[in-house]
């Protein structure tokens, strides 16, 4: 089956440091290339139709850059983004804004209170993408907005209100309604529940699960709340410093993490009343993402199991069993066992 989204070897690098007069001069003489941040470095993954893929990792690991690449808000340095067999990576982001595929990939941003124009009423916030991407107006527009609001459980009486007059949960609903109004096939969610209280978070998660079932969308769900990812996602991608270090079915990754970073990540998740449990802790600092050594594992230095082999050859993401992939020298591919 052809996946809805297939990302291959996607890379995004940013030059660092302002090009001041001296560095401009240096560049002209071409003595020293400008240092670059490897925000996303050779990432490949697929999302099937109707599948929910969770993307986890700590701040600065490149989650948000990857999301911006996939939603084509920024241009990749290299690599391919096949959406329904069409390569979107060649299209400049500016052009993609008016592309026929733009409505098919939509995004729900982190804090709806921050991401919705404060001078737009809830109606206008939801209507904006419909006007711009579908060219709707008048009664047809009103019907679509009200349908999207209804699907997200937003009372129609609230549509005249402005973001500051809505509660956090209602704002989250507006953010979701706005994204689903144009009937996307891929919905990218960037920490949609991070700003919400637990009681509201539950409602929003259940809403997302219901919409997925009703509308048959695929989700790319970014979060650093692993418990939320565990509950909502079919598959998980674990990212560390620009690279995917582990991928697999959510339940398997959670119950038996293979990569030492995933192990530490899952061990760090607080569990109700588990005070004295054994825990893996990371020490040291993350390696710099600026011009990283291509032969050294990005996790080396923080990894409890790092050996000299990890500094000689970068571990590649390799299949472990039929469904899982992991990038670590210490994982024995034959026996599907983590040596750590």
């Amino acid at each position, binding site marked *: 089956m052809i996946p809805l989204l297939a990302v291959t070897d996607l890379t995004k690098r940013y030059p660092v440091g302002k090009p001041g007069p001296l560095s401009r001069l240096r560049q002209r003489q071409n003595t020293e290339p400008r240092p670059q941040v490897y925000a996303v470095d050779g990432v490949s993954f697929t999302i099937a139709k109707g599948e929910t893929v969770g993307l986890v990792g*700590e*701040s*600065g690991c490149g989650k948000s850059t990857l999301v911006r690449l996939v939603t084509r808000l920024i241009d990749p340095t290299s690599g391919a983004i096949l959406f329904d067999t069409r390569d979107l990576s060649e299209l400049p982001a500016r052009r993609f804004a008016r592309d026929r595929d733009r409505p098919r990939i939509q995004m729900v941003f982190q804090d709806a209170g921050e991401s919705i124009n404060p001078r737009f009423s809830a109606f206008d916030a939801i209507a904006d993408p419909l006007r711009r991407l579908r060219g709707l107006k008048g009664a047809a527009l009103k019907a679509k907005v009200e349908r999207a609001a209804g699907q997200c459980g937003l009372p129609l009486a609230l549509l005249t209100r402005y973001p500051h007059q809505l*509660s*956090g949960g209602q704002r989250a609903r507006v953010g979701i309604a706005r994204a689903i109004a144009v009937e996307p096939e891929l919905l990218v969610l960037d920490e949609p529940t991070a700003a919400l*209280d*637990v*009681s*509201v*978070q*539950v*409602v929003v*998660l*259940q809403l997302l*699960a219901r919409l997925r079932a009703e509308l048959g969308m695929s989700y790319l769900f970014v979060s*650093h*709340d*692993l*418990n*939320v990812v*565990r*509950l*909502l996602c079919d598959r998980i991608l674990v990212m560390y410093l620009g690279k995917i270090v582990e991928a697999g079915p959510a339940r398997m990754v959670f119950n038996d993490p293979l990569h030492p970073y995933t192990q*530490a*990540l899952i*061990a*760090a*998740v*607080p*569990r*109700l*009343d*588990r*005070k004295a449990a054994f*825990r893996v*802790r*990371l020490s*040291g*600092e993350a390696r710099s993402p600026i011009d990283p050594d291509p032969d050294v594992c990005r996790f080396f230095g923080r990894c409890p199991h790092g050996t000299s082999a990890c500094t000689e050859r970068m571990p590649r993401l390799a299949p472990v069993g039929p469904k899982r992939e992991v990038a670590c020298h210490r994982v024995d591919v034959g026996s599907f066992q983590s040596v750590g």
Partner: protein
Amino acid sequence: MSAPALLIDNLSVEFRTRSGVVKAVENVTISVGKGETVAIVGESGSGKSVTAYTAMRILDAAGRVTGGRIMLGAVDLLTLRESELAELRGREIAMIFQNPRSALNPIRPVGRQIADVLIRHANVPRALAAQRAVELLQAVGITDPARRAKAYPFEMSGGMCQRVMIAIALAARPSVLIADEPTTGLDVTTQAVIMELIADLAVDIRMATVFITHDLALAGQHADRIVVMHAGHVVETAPTAALFAWPRHPYTAQLIAATAESAASLQELASIPGSLPDLQRADLPPCRFSQRCHLKTTACDQTLPSLSPNSTHAVACWNPLQ
């Protein structure tokens, strides 16, 4: 039992706003013993931060304490003058704030900020302060502390800034520490390390810790006792294990059921119906949870049952779960 290190006794706080008086905290009693960690858990608007800020006497100017005492040992902090408070803050009672990056001084190297506290509150001679600051950075697990002491907050990660703030708070070895959501906004891996760091240091100096959080699971992992707040009231207080095993207040039970950590599937998660009552209303019901409660009876409209002060597991409810 010896006298608590910090006793928040029957505290009530109001805010005067343009649209009326908000009864943010009402008759809240929390006691923390030496070496004990007590977590205050609640959703936004529950009054947990207002309680903490009042205990530090750094309440917003619009806030007014309408009753109660804040006993630090034998001293009532609410009766002290600002100059007397300045002697106690940092030395006896210290606070770690949410969002370390904005709580630290952005234009002063972090080592200097730690040294300031040492000179002012810990009687460290000026000449030795810089060296002691480096030692403290080392103690909170910052690598290459001598170099980091010269760094500004913007040059450090969020986790490192939080370590600096912990170093500042603990520089003078206070007897009471108030940590207001110390790990919100940090990664889970960093969160675990920071929470353990606070716990280890607290054990070292037998410090009483008040840990404020909205994360029930995190509280469960790190607190000896949990105080659950809802709409300005303490609804339940119990030793951690007992609270999770036998929650007695309907709100506590629903909060646990809504926590993603506890559920095996999304369907299992239960939301809490309704929302916080408007705390500006003149006719607030005695039990502020009653309108969201499925166990409400006529007794709930009469008076609020008080938390029995002597029991370890106290609940403010007429129909507690068994």
